[in-house]
């Protein structure tokens, strides 16, 4: 089987999410020929890192400097057809959702998104994926090839490094054949010194109980820092402009599964649970003893986060 993976990177290296996608590819077929595609411009240090995980197909060109779905989608279509690939896959991230579904629209549409498990039944691949905000898990099969997949990173541990250095292949890029339907005008992100919410071992999240960004920073940020963790938030705080969108955990935000998830003043709506219910340990603090979040928590404390959390932070700093 020939599997292509759409790689994602930051500064100098592969994102953990892509390492999970590689692990998934290895687990659906241990004999698969795997190639990770890296698209962008001037990516030398990134490529050095990618070589540690699998064979690499490099699409390095000025015309690919910014990630637009029209160009990347067309390029992926060409690569899949040229390489006669059986599967094109990536992690469930906004980048892959945007680009891979566009590529799938040019490649016959056999796509399944956000895979959390798989089976091999008589040589046929079956995939598990959540529906209805995670209330239901469906087992599906795809009809036709190539198959386009996205894989939930928290369901597959990152691929292990073997010490092997893999081979790279550089593609010829003809910018003239690439579409030019959108202009990329920039990215605004709130730089944070904290780890990414999807990669951290500890996530401390805040909900409507937090009245403003200062309180969020002191209470949620304070506890996250004491535990060397990341901060997350419910939808409500993003809607109210208290937290940036990249912190939203849930059905339509990020999916996390850290060793410890601490929910502060979050009621536990199904859409929020969809993003964190597979965390190893869940701890909730909420002043409503009936809040549904307690039903999915290992440990709960009823009370005001404004009183409890500062004491908790103090206790950790005292250590």
């Amino acid at each position: 089987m020939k599997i292509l993976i759409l790689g994602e990177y930051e500064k100098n290296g592969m994102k953990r999410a892509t390492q999970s996608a590689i692990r998934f590819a290895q687990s659906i077929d241990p004999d698969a020929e795997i190639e990770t595609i890296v698209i962008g411009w001037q990516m030398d240090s990134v490529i050095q890192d990618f070589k540690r995980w699998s064979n690499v197909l490099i699409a390095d060109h000025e015309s690919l400097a910014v990630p637009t779905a029209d160009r990347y989608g067309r390029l992926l279509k060409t690569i899949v057809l040229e390489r006669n690939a059986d599967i094109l896959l990536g992690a469930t991230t906004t980048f892959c959702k945007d680009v891979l579904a566009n590529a799938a629209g040019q490649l016959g549409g056999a796509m399944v998104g956000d895979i959390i498990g798989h089976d091999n039944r008589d040589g046929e691949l079956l995939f598990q994926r959540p529906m209805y905000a995670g209330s239901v898990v469906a087992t599906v099969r795809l009809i036709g090839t190539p198959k386009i997949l996205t894989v939930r990173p928290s369901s597959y541990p990152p691929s292990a490094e073997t010490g092997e250095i893999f081979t790279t292949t550089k593609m010829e890029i003809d910018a003239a054949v690439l579409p030019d339907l959108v202009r990329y005008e920039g990215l605004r992100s709130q730089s944070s010194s904290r780890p990414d919410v999807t990669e951290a071992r500890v996530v401390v999240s805040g909900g409507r109980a937090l009245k403003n960004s200062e309180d969020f920073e002191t209470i949620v940020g304070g506890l996250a820092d004491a535990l060397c963790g990341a901060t997350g938030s419910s939808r409500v705080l993003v809607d109210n402009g208290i937290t940036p969108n990249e912190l939203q955990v849930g059905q339509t935000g990020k999916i996390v599964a850290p060793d410890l998830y601490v929910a502060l003043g979050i009621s536990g709506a199904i859409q929020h649970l969809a993003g964190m219910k597979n965390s190893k340990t869940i701890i909730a603090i909420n002043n409503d003893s009936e809040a549904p979040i307690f039903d999915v928590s290992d440990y709960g404390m009823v009370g005001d986060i404004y009183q409890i959390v500062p004491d908790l932070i103090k206790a950790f700093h005292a250590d």
Partner: protein
Amino acid sequence: MKILVTCKRVPDPDQKIRLQADSREIDSENLPYILNPFDAIAVEESLRIRETHGEPVEIVAIGIGVEECDKTLRTALAMGADRAVLIPWDSFLDPWNVSGILEKIIQRENPSLVLMGKQAVDGDSNQTGQMLAARLGWAQATFASRIEFQSGGKLKVERETDSGIETLGLNLPAIITADLRLNEPRYASLPSIMKARKKPIERIETSELGWAPDPKVEIINMSMPQTSRKKVRLTDISDLVARIKEALKTN
């Protein structure tokens, strides 16, 4: 300008989902259905564009599905859409097939902008808009949190990505999928609900569109995931500290 807005009928996300005995489908008996929340945001955005756009704007709501989608489309009409089209279909359709039907409708209606929800909260696929853009070769902007019309038919779209807010410039025709922060949909007033009853809902059979199903995804079965948690209540901060330390120690 003509704007096409997609409107899917989905179970109310606040309701508990149950499965049928054969675990092939959800149990829809007594389940209240609503307009997919993301599609409601798309409808709202089309109305705001009409309210602020210099030229006349026609808004056409499209539904694909069972006869009851009629009600879902009435919601869009009550919010302010001008007319609606229902393509009757009574079994599961995957995103490839939905985008195939939409492509045919678009060839018939010739809109210059298609607004859709970024995902439907039943299937949670988040693929139909992208596949449609690919099929048509149109500009694509997913997860939109802001749409601004500029002079000369140009659009500026802000989109919510995992790493922050990205800005794209596009020309029409385009497919834009709505995220939560694009707007807050209005509630239809009683008079507009009354008025919507008189607005036309055209029915077009898939055969009339020259479309035939081409299934790509087959759902084999469904299950309800169970998680069991300890659910221990703590009252002392020191216990809380101990439990946190324990959780950090594992593995």
